C-alpha cells in the first residue's frame, strides 16, 4: 500500500508516494537519487547509511521512509556550502586523511557532526566510544579520530 510522504531533504521540499515497506535509505537513494547515502549492511550495524533527521544522526536503514514524514533530513550532499566549499567536518576529514575508499565516509562525517553537537570538546576516548556504530575497514580509525577533533575545533569558530 502506498504512503504519502512530505519532508524536507537538504533544504528542499520532497513529496512522494512510496510503498509502505520502503526504508528511508531506499527512498533517499532510489526515489530522490541521493546516492551519497550508502548501504553497507542489512542489520543496522555498519552506519554507512547515517543521515541527520532533525539534526540527530540516524541509520537510515533502521527506519521506514514513512516514519520520517514531516522531518528535516540532511544527507551528505546537503553539507557543503552552495558554492561547493566543504563543511568544516568534511574539510577536517580531508586534511587529516580520515577516509580511504570513501564508502563509510558519508555516514562517518554525519555521525561526527552529531557527536560534536553533543560533545563539543570530546576527547579521543569519547570520540571512539561515540563512533563505534560506524564501521570503517580502511583507516583503522586513527585519522578519523584526528579529523573529528580538528573538525570540532573548526565548527566552534
Amino acid at each position, binding site marked *: 500500500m502506498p504512503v504519502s510522504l512530505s519532508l524536507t531533504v537538504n533544504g528542499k521540499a520532497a513529496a512522494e508516494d512510496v510503498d509502505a515497506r520502503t526504508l528511508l535509505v531506499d527512498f533517499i537513494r532510489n526515489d530522490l537519487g541521493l546516492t*551519497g547515502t*550508502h548501504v553497507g549492511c*542489512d542489520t543496522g550495524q*555498519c552506519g554507512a547509511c547515517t543521515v541527520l533527521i532533525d539534526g540527530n544522526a540516524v541509520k537510515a536503514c533502521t527506519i521506514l521512509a514513512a516514519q520520517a514524514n514531516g522531518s528535516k533530513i540532511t544527507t551528505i550532499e546537503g553539507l*557543503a556550502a552552495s558554492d561547493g566549499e566543504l563543511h568544516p567536518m568534511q574539510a577536517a576529514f580531508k586534511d587529516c586523511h580520515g577516509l580511504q*575508499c570513501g564508502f563509510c565516509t558519508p555516514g562517518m562525517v554525519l555521525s561526527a557532526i552529531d557527536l560534536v553537537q553533543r560533545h563539543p570538546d570530546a576527547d579521543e576516548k569519547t570520540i571512539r566510544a561515540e563512533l563505534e556504530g560506524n*564501521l570503517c*575497514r580502511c*583507516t583503522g580509525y586513527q585519522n578519523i579520530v584526528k579529523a573529528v577533533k580538528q573538525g570540532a575545533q573548526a565548527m566552534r569558530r
Partner: protein
Amino acid sequence: MGASDLNSVGQSVRRKEDYRFLTGTGQFTDDINPQHHTHAYFLRSPHAHARIRSIDTAKAKAAPGVIAVCTGDDLTGVNGLPCGWLITGTDGQPMKEPPHPILAQGKVRYVGDGVALVVAETPDQAKDAAEMIAVDYEVLPAVVNPVDALKKNAPAIHEGAPGNKCYTWALGDKTATDAAFASAAHVTKLDLVNNRLIPNAIEPRAAVASYSRADDSYTLYVTSQNPHVERLLMTAFVLGLPETKVRVIAPDVGGGFGSKIYLYPEETALVWVSKRVNRPIKWTAERSESFLSDAHGRDHVTHAELALDKDGKFLGMRVQTTAAMGAYLSTFASCIPTILYATLLAGQYTTPAIWCEVTAVFTNTAPVDAYRGAGRPEATYVVERIVHAAAVEMGVAQDEIRRRNFIRKFPYQTPVALLYDIGDYDACLDEAMKIADTKGFAARKAEAAGRGKLRGLGYASYIEACGIAPSNIAGALGARAGLFEVGQVRVNPTGGVTVFTGSHSHGQGHETTFSQIVASRLGIPIENVEIVHGDTGRVPFGMGTYGSRSLAVGGTAIVKALDKVIAKGRKIAAHLLEAAEADIEFGDGKFSVAGTDRSKTFGEVALSAYVPHNYPLDKLEPGLDETAFYDPTNFTFPAGTHICEVEVDPDTGVVEVVNFSACDDFGNIINPMIVEGQVHGGLAQGIGQALLEQCVYDRESGQLLTGSYMDYAMPRSDDLPSFNVATKVTPCTHNPLGAKGCGEAGAIGAPAALMNAVHDALSAAGVKYIDMPATPHRVWNALQSAQ
C-alpha cells in the same frame, strides 16, 4: 609557485579524490542506474552439501514483475570459472580442478552456493519470486574443517578430488632440513591455527550488466580490483565472447582487501543473462550474502618446528600446513598457501634449511582466496610465533634472538626460492623498540601487576614479497597470466597530462600518489595531471591492484612511459632550439640547451607535437602519447618490526591493546600521509584477526554461524588504540622509484606481534598456548585451566 614547489614527491599532499567522497558525489557500482534497468536476486543454497533432485521455477516465472529465472541447466554454452594458478603436487600431478559452475549443477557444496537467478522489475519482486522457487534437495553430510576433510570417512565434495585433496605441494630441501634437526641443540615445536576471516569491505559486491543489440556488445560495471583480468577470464574462459565486445568498468570501489580480485559467479551470470533479457540488470549483495559468498581468507592448520644451536642460531625449520580451499577453487586460491606462503618462511633470518609441505583441501564452505597479506600473514605468524616460543624456551631476549639471526648481507638468496634485494632489519627493530619504549616495559608491567593486570610485550619482525611479480618467475611457478603493469601517459596539446593506469584504486589514493610522481617528473602542477583507471574501454590493459603492487609495478610503468615522453620531447625541443639532441637537458619543466639560457617549456613542446608546423616530420611522428608495459625483475621485500603491548584483565579475560608500535621499511615513500593511513588500516585488520574476527561454520551442519556484523566481530573505533608508526628507508634496488609497497604490512605483522604479547602476558599465569582470536572467553578459559 616556483619550479621546485612542483616536486611534491615525499610530501603529504592531500588527496585529489577526497572531494567527491566527502560530498556524496563518488560513483560506486550501486549508484549506477541505467534507464529501464532490472534487478537480479540469487537464490542460494541453505545446505552445506546436497544433491539437487529438482528445481521448480514455474511459480516464480509467473510472479509479478519477473522477467527471467535461470538455473544451472539454463546456462548452455557457459563454462565454469577458471583458477588462475596451476600448482603441481609433490606427486608430479597437477592440482585437482573440479568444475566451478556459475550456478549449481546437480549439487550444492556450501551454504550460499548459487542455485538460481531471478531477474525482475524491482529488487523486492526478484526476492519475492525467488522464495517461490521449489528446490528438492537430498541433504548430504558436510565437512567444513580442513583437517576433518582429510579424514578417511569424510564426505566426498567433488568426484574428481579423492579424499577432498586439491594438492600436496612442498618447497625446500627436506634432506638438508632433517639433517639440521639431527644436529640441533634445541628444537621448538608449535601447532598453530590461522583463523578463517571474512574480508568485509564495507561496500558489498555489486554489478550492473547491459547488453547492446546495436553492436552486440556488453558493458559491465563491477566492484573489481582488476577489471582487465575480470574481462579476460570472463570472456576467454567462461562465456566465450570476444574481449572487444565486453567493456568492464570498476568505478569507485569501496574497499577490496583482496575480496574483489576474483571473477565471481554473480557478475558472470549477469552478463550472460543481460543479452537474454536485453535490458540492463543490477545486482547488489546484501551483507548477509557477502558473508556467505565473498571469498574468505586464511584458514590454515599448521605444525611447525624450529631447530636451533646452543646459541639460539636457527639451523632449520620444518612446516606442515593444511589449507582450506573452500568448496571451489577461487581465482588465485591455489597460490596463496604455496607461492605466497612457503616462500616467506625464511622471514628476516638466515635459517639455512627450510622445508614446507602444504596440503590444500576442499571443504563445504565459501571459497578461500587472498585476503590482505595473502599467505604472508600466515607465514609471518608461523615464523614469529615459533621464534617467540624458542626465545622463551631458551631464555634469550626477544630482540636478541632476532638479532642473532638477522640477514645482513644483500642480495640474499633464501632456501625457499626468494632473492631479497635489500633491507636493514636492525634499523627497524631498533626504531620499533625506541617508539615502543621497551626499556620502560618492566616498570609498566610491575605497575599493572599492582592493579591485578597482566602485561605482555610481543615482537614480530616480518618480511613480505610484494610488487607481484616477474611474469617469467610467476609462470614457472604455475601462474596462468602475466603480472606486468601498464601505464599510458597522454600529454594533451595544451600541456595537461592524462595518465591511464592498469592499477586500480579502491582506497589507496592512486589519483594523488601517481599525480605526484607525474607532476614532479614533468615539472608541472599536480592539478594538470588526471589519473584514469578502472575501465577497459579507456585503459590499454592492466593486471590490477593486489599484493601491494600498485606503486612498485603500476607506478613504475607510468615512470617508464614518462621516460618515453621526455625522450620524445627532447627530440622535439632539439629541433625547436636548433640544437643537437644530446645537448638537450630536461628539468624543472623545461627542455634547455646545456650551458645556455635557451629553453622551451614542457607546454611549448607539447603544443608543438600537436601543431607540428615547425617540426621534424621526416623523422618524428606528431603527438605526445606514450605507453609502457613494465614487468618487474624481482619481487620487492618490505620488512619491519611491530611491537605490541597488551594488558589482560584476568578476571574477565579482556585483552586491551595498550600500545602498538610499527617501524616499516617500504623503500622510498611518495606520500607519507597515505602510507601512514595504509599502515593504520592494515594494523586494524591484523589486530582484528588476533583479537576479534573469526569465521565460524557449524562443524556438523556446515551453517555459517558468523553471518552478520552481529556475530562476526569487526574492529570498531573503541576496540583499537592509536598506533605509533615510523619508517626506515632502504630503497628497492630494481625499480626506478625505489618503492616496495605498503598496503599489507600492518595485517602481516600485527597478528603475530599481538599474540606474542598475549602469550607473554599469560605466561606468568602458566598459560602455554592460545589460538587467535584471543577473545575474553578464550583467554579466561585458558587462565582457568592453567590454574
